[in-house]
C-alpha cells in the first residue's frame, strides 16, 4: 500500500509516472562500493580475431576489477568489445578465429590465462596485415578443460537472447538439472543416500500435512511440508509436496496412500544405491580434478602426479559403473537421481518467482516467453552460488516491463546471494539503475572507469559525455538530441593513438599519435584521455 501511494498519486505531483526525489540514503538502497575482496582482476587483456580480411583488434589492453558484492557495468556501443570481454574472461571466444593475445585474468588468485603464450604462435605474413596463427590444439584443449574448474561454479553467465541460449531439444529441468548435478551433484547424491523415508517421524508429519492440506491452509501446509522434508532429510521433498498439492485438483486425491507412493522414490534398491555411490565417486573425482586445475592456474605449474592419481582411479570406477549403464538397467538406477533433479529444478524456479514451476520445468524452451526463459537462465546461473555473475545484455531482447522484472530479480538475488555481477549492456540507463561502478568501452578499450554517480554527474571522457548527452530521456522533454558524428571505426585498422580521436570534438594533435594513459582523477574515477593529467594508473 505504501508503494502504491508513492507511485500513483493525484495529477498535481504526478510527473511522468515517475516520482523524483532526492536519494535519502544511497547506501541503504545500494551497497556503497567499499573496497572489498577482489573477485576478478583483468589486466591488459587483448583479444584479436584472425579473419581472412585481417586481424580484428577487438580488445586492446582492457583492465578492470570486480570486487565482492559489487555490480560493475560494462557499457559501450555495438562492436566495442563488451561481449568479447565477457567471453574472454570465461574463455568462450570461438577459436578460431578469435584468440586472446595477452593479458592476465585473475579469478580469486588463479590466472585463467595461464599458459596462454604456449597455445599459439603468430607469424606475420609479409606485405600484408595478415598474421599466420599456428595453434597448438592440444594446449588449447587443455586450457579449455582447465576452465571447467571456473565456469559454472566460479563464474556464471547469462546471455542476451534467452530463446537462443537454451537448448531447444531438452526440457527446462533437464538443462537446469544438468548444471545442478555437475556442481552440486555430490550433495544431491548424499542427501538421497541419507534419506530416511521410513523414519518414525515421517508418518505423523505426513498426517499433519494431510490435515493442513485438506482445508488448503497454505501457511500450515508449508510448515507441515517443511517438517516432512526435515524428517525425510531431503529438502526438495517440501517443494514436491507443495507443488503436488497445488496441482491436486480434487481434495480427495491427496491422501496418505498417494503421499506414501511419493515417498517411494527415497526407498532405493541395492542397485540404485550402488549406482549412487559410484556416481558419487565419479563426481568426487571430477571435483578433485577441477581443484587440481584451479591449483595449477594459481601456482603456475602442472600438478602431474596429482592428476595421474585421479586418473588412475577414474578408469576402475567407470568400469564398475559400466554394467549399470547398460540399456535396461540405466533407467532404473538413474530414476531417483532424475526425480530429485527435477524437484530441485522446480525449487530453483520457485526461487526466481516463476508462477507454476512444476509445469514450467517439464516444458521446452520454445514454450516459454523471453522473460520466463531469462528467469530460467538466472536460476541456472545462480544455482551454484557463484562468486561472480557475468550478465551479457540480459534484458536487451526483452520488453521494458519485463526488463524491469528481470532487473528487480537480479538486484534481489544479488543482495540475497552476495554475488558480484558484471553487467554488460549498451543501455546507460540500465547501468544507472543497477550498477555500482561503470566501465565505458570504446573500440575495444576502456576509456573511463568510475563509480556510477561520479560518472553520470561528471563524465570526463568526451565519448562518455557524448554518449550520455545522446540518450533521449523519458523524464524530460528534449530540446535537440546530441549525436556523436561518424561511426565506430573498423577494428582491423583501428585509429592510431586514441581510438576515439576521429570522432572526438576536442581532439588534439597528440591524440592522433599517442595512446592516452589511464589516469586517476580522484573519487575512484579513472579516465584514458589526453585532456586529463592526473596520476597515471599503473597498467
Amino acid at each position, binding site marked *: 500500500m505504501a508503494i502504491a501511494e508513492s507511485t500513483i498519486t493525484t495529477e498535481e505531483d504526478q510527473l511522468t509516472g515517475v516520482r523524483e526525489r532526492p536519494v535519502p540514503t544511497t547506501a541503504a538502497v545500494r551497497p556503497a562500493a567499499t573496497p572489498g575482496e577482489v573477485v576478478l582482476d583483468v589486466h591488459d587483456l587483448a583479444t584479436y580475431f584472425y579473419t581472412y580480411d*585481417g586481424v*580484428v583488434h*577487438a580488445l586492446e589492453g582492457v583492465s578492470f576489477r570486480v570486487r565482492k558484492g559489487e555490480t560493475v557495468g560494462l557499457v559501450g556501443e*555495438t*562492436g566495442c568489445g563488451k561481449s568479447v570481454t565477457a567471453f574472454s574472461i570465461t574463455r568462450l571466444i570461438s577459436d578460431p578465429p578469435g584468440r586472446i593475445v595477452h593479458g592476465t585474468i585473475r579469478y580469486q588468485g588463479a590466472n585463467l590465462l595461464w599458459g596462454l603464450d604456449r597455445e599459439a604462435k603468430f607469424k606475420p605474413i609479409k606485405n*600484408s596485415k595478415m598474421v599466420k596463427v599456428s595453434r597448438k590444439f592440444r594446449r588449447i584443449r587443455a586450457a579449455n578443460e582447465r576452465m571447467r574448474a571456473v565456469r559454472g561454479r566460479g563464474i556464471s553467465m547469462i546471455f542476451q537472447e534467452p530463446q537462443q541460449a537454451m537448448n531447444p531439444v531438452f526440457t527446462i529441468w533437464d538443462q537446469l538439472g544438468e548444471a545442478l548435478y555437475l556442481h552440486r551433484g555430490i550433495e544431491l547424491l548424499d542427501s538421497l543416500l541419507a534419506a530416511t523415508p521410513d523414519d518414525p517421524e515421517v508418518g505423523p508429519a505426513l498426517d499433519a500435512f494431510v490435515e493442513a492440506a485438506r482445508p488448503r491452509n497454505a501457511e500450515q501446509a508449508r510448515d507441515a511440508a517443511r517438517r516432512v522434508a526435515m524428517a525425510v532429510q531431503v529438502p526438495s521433498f517440501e517443494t514436491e509436496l507443495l507443488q503436488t498439492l497445488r496441482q491436486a485438483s480434487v481434495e480427495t486425491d491427496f491422501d496418505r496412500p498417494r503421499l506414501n507412493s511419493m515417498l517411494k522414490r527415497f526407498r532405493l534398491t541395492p542397485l540404485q544405491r550402488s549406482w549412487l555411490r559410484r556416481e558419487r565417486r565419479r563426481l568426487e573425482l571430477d571435483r578433485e580434478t577441477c581443484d587440481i586445475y584451479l591449483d595449477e592456474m594459481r601456482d603456475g605449474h602442472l600438478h602431474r602426479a596429482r592428476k595421474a592419481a585421479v586418473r588412475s582411479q577414474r578408469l576402475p570406477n567407470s568400469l564398475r559403473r559400466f554394467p549399470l549403464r547398460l540399456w535396461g538397467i540405466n533407467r532404473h538406477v538413474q530414476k531417483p537421481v532424475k526425480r530429485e533433479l527435477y524437484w530441485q529444478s522446480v525449487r530453483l524456479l520457485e526461487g526466481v518467482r516463476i508462477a507454476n514451476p512444476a509445469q514450467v520445468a517439464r516444458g521446452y524452451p520454445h514454450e516459454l516467453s523471453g522473460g520466463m526463459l531469462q528467469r530460467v537462465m538466472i536460476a541456472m546461473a545462480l544455482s551454484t552460488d557463484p562468486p561472480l555473475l557475468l550478465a551479457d545484455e540480459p534484458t536487451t531482447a526483452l520488453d521494458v516491463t519485463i526488463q524491469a522484472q528481470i532487473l528487480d530479480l537480479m538486484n534481489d538475488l544479488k543482495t540475497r546471494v552476495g554475488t558480484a555481477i558484471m553487467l554488460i549492456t549498451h543501455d546507460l540507463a540500465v547501468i544507472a539503475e543497477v550498477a555500482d561502478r561503470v566501465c565505458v568501452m570504446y573500440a575495444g578499450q576502456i576509456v573511463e572507469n568510475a563509480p556510477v554517480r561520479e560518472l553520470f554527474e561528471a563524465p570526463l571522457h568526451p565519448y562518455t559525455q557524448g554518449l550520455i548527452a545522446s540518450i533521449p530521456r523519458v523524464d524530460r522533454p528534449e530540446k535537440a538530441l546530441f549525436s556523436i558524428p561518424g561511426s565506430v*571505426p*573498423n*577494428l*582491423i585498422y583501428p585509429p592510431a593513438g586514441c581510438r576515439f580521436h576521429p570522432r572526438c570534438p576536442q581532439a588534439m594533435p597528440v591524440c592522433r599519435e599517442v595512446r592516452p594513459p589511464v589516469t586517476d582523477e580522484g573519487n575512484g574515477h579513472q579516465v584514458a584521455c589526453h585532456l586529463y593529467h592526473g596520476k597515471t594508473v599503473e597498467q
Partner: protein
Amino acid sequence: MSATGTNGIAEEALPGEGPPGNSATVTASTRRRPNPRLDQFKRTWYFFRRNTLAMVGLGILVFFVAAFVYGLVFQGPTTQLNLYCATDGAPSQSTCPAGNISVCTYPQGTTSPGANCYQTPVIDGIPYNNFIPPTMTTTTLGPLPFGALIQSGQVGTPYFYNLYAGLVKGTDWSLSISVAIVLTGAISGLLIGVIAGFYGGVVDEVLMRLTDIFLSVPQILLVIVVILAGQEIGITGFDNRILLMVGAFIATWWPTYARIVRGQVLVVREQKYVEAARASGASGGRIVRKHVMPNSVYPVFVQMSLDVGTVPLLIAAIVYIGFPIFPNVLWPEWGSIAAESTLTLPDILQECAILGSGSACPFPWWQLLFPGMALFLFAISVNFVADGLRDALDPRLRR
C-alpha cells in the same frame, strides 16, 4: 563518414592484399568505381582462388572443357570412333579399307597376324559387329598414352577401339548430355520453385506435393521406366532415345531444384527489401525478377555444378545394370565405357583362367582405369569447384 561494417568482427575489408571491394580506405575517397559488379566478381574470385582444392578442380575442369572442344572441333560431331585394326604387332590402319569402320581379327593361336578385316554393318550411324566370330583374346597393349591402342572390348565380341579416342569422344557426349539435363532441370526447377515459394497457398501446396511425388521415385528407376515406356510407344531411333533419356532425367531432376529454390524464396520473400519494393508499388513480376530471383539463385548454381558431375555416374549405373540406353554397349560415353569395362572384366579374367592355365594373363587395367578416371576426375573436380563456389559466394562460411 566512414564505410565500416556493423561491428568490427564481421567487417570484411582489406585493401591491396585482401579481397578487393569494400575496403576501409575507401572511406573518404572520391574515387569513382565504374563497375562495382566486377569488384564483386573479383571478390568472389579472390576467395575462390584461395581455395586450393577448388583451383585444382577448376584446372581439371578446364582440361575436360579443352577435350570437349577438341572432340568437337577436330573430330567433328559426326565422326565415328577410330577403329583400328588390331594385330599383335603395331597398330595400323593401312590394312583396313579407308573410310570403313572395320575390325580385324585373327585366328586364335596363330602367331602371325592374319590381317583379315571384316566389314562392319553401320546402322543408324553405329557400327554393329556382333556377328564377327569370337576368336580374340586381349593381349595387345600398345605404348601409352596417345596414339596407341588402349583397347576395350568384350572377349565374346572382338571389338576393339582406341580407348583414348573413345574417351575424347565421350567428353562430348557426357558433357553435353549432363549439361543439357542439369540446365533444363535447373531452369524448370527454378521457375517452379519461385512460383511455389512466391505465390504460396494452394499453388505452393500442389507444386510441392508434385515434387514430393517425383522425389519419392528412385531416380534410376524412373529413368529406366520412362525410357522403357517411351520405347514401347514408338520412340525409337538413336536421337529420339537420347532425347527420351534426357527428358527422363529432367523429370527426375527438377524437384531437387524446386525444393532448394522454394526454400530460398520463402526466406527472401519475408525480407524487408521485398516489402519495401511492394511499398513503392512494384508489381509481383518485378519483385520476382529484381529481388527474389537474384537473391535465391546462388544455391542453384552450386547445386548445378554438383549435379553436372553426377549425371555421367547415373548413366553409367543404368548401363551397368544392363539396361541399353545407348544402342551399342560401346557407345562412346564415359559412363557407358566404364560400365562396359567393368562388365567385361570378369569374362576376361575367366577367359584368362581357362586359356592361360596359370600362364601370365595381363590384367587389363586400362579398361578400368581410364574410363573410371574420367568419370571420377570429372565428378570430383566439379565437386571441388562447387564447394569452392559455395564458400566464395557465402560469406558466412568464410572464416
